[in-house]
């Protein structure tokens, strides 16, 4: 058994190098397939980061009437915090709001002058409320407006923002749906391409396979070396793709960073390194084994 296994591995290894042209072609195809699978895998964390960065920019602000004390606002804050849909609450006093406004517009003399002319702080004390999901903002807003704090609240700034929030919600759901759709399509294409490459490679050896059977080789002894070649192709392709993915993630890091500072493709690569390599290896080896196993089947019927 061990002798047979040793001979099968040796034979597969030798065939890989003696058929180097075909082997390299198979490795290239397999690299493309694994790369496609890796991209789909990495798109998950990237789109998650993208979605959460957009979602972070969405909140509902509650503005309080002029004469409400900070203690009362804190009491309201504690009450709102107990609603399960609420993720976090940030208190911004009217002074803080003014400061932020001045800081943001310090280079715009018209705005600063207008503010000075006004003579008082036009801002309100506010609570910025963030929900877990975009779909929950409407619920939170209606709870606030219909709740016991109605007398304290000057305005709930939700309906002005509703179109943006709805849009974010639609984009989030859309990205997930599109991702799933393309994932499925690319997955099927990848498997078919890999399968056909291995099949063409094996078709080339159809006569040899028949002769192996006719000189008394068992099915496993005939199939073994082809499966070993499939594994070698898969492993080499996985390693090359890993290096390629690293180079691309590293290279894209600064470019994507300038567009969306929250997303670091390099960090995503590092954080998912082992899982990514495992997926790449499993895709390469799995496709290599399954394709050669199926492709060789019809020639073993002799």
């Amino acid at each position: 058994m061990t002798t047979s296994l040793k001979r099968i591995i040796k034979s597969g290894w030798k065939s890989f190098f003696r058929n180097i042209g075909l082997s390299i072609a198979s490795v290239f195809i397999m690299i493309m397939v694994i790369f496609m699978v890796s991209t789909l895998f990495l798109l998950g964390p990237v789109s998650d980061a993208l979605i959460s960065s957009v979602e972070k920019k969405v909140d509902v602000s509650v503005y309080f009437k002029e004469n409400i004390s900070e203690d009362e606002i804190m009491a309201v804050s504690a009450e709102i915090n107990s609603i399960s849909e609420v993720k976090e609450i940030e208190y911004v006093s009217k002074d803080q709001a003014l400061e932020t406004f001045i800081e943001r517009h310090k280079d715009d003399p018209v705005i600063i002058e207008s503010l000075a002319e006004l003579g008082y702080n036009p801002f309100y004390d506010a609570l910025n409320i963030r929900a877990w999901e975009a779909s929950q903002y409407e619920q939170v807003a209606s709870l606030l407006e219909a709740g016991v704090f109605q007398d304290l609240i000057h305005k709930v700034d939700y309906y002005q923002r509703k179109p943006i929030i709805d849009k974010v919600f639609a984009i989030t759901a859309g990205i997930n749906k599109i991702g799933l759709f393309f994932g499925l399509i690319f997955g099927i294409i990848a498997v078919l391409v890999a399968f056909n490459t291995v099949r063409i490679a094996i078709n080339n050896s159809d006569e040899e396979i028949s002769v192996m059977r006719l000189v008394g080789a068992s099915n496993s002894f005939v199939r073994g070396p082809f499966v070993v070649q499939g594994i070698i192709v898969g492993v080499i392709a996985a390693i090359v793709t890993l290096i390629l993915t690293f180079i691309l993630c590293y290279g894209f890091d600064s470019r994507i960073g300038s567009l969306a500072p929250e997303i670091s493709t390099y960090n995503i690569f590092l954080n998912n390194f082992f899982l990514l390599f495992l997926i790449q290896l499993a895709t390469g080896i799995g496709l290599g084994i399954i394709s050669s196993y199926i492709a060789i089947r019809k020639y073993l019927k002799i």
Partner: protein
Amino acid sequence: MISIQNLSKIYSSKYSPDPTVALNDISFEIEDKEFVSLVGKSGAGKTTLLKMILAEEKPSQGKVVFQGINVHDINRKHLPKLRQKIGVVFQDYKLFAFKTVCENVAYVMEVMGAKEEDINRDVPQILDLVGLKDKMCNFPRELSGGEKQRVAIARALIHRPDVILADEPTGNLDPYHTRGIIKLLLKIHGMGTTVVLATHDKNVINSLGKRVVTIDKGKIIRDEQKGRFIL
């Protein structure tokens, strides 16, 4: 040793209304350690008969009994055991292109699970017998037709099979190499192996002076102990 009993093979095609009769109810016996030549024109049914013995094809009717067992009753999983008792030489050599001469010959022993030291001892011996000891590390593409056929014979012989089936082994060779291959087959026969030689080479048959079974249009028309080529 081999008993062919009422064997028929009819090929039918959906594109042709008339089925092709390759073998038509033939019966004969091949004894142990015998040298039998199967003679006939191209398309007479010689190759089909050899394929039936090797269980490469199923008969339409009749059976092939090898050492007491109907070869077509053997499960596909157990066919390797039958085939390991038979050595085959093909007209077009059918060597493994990406294996060296040595590896081509050793393959059959590896298939049978022979020990490494036995392979290392037997392969050079058999290549010496067929006169190719100095070509052990060459690939088939680096050999002449005659040399390729000698490698094929060495591969058929290496595991000491009970019978050798040689299908037109000299079909692609010049008279000089033809003589060499026939001498080799006689030598193997002299060592106690049954040989079944299918050919349409008149000179080869007439020089042998052995049993000749003549097949024409799928039927046996002559079976003589010291036969000649008559068609």
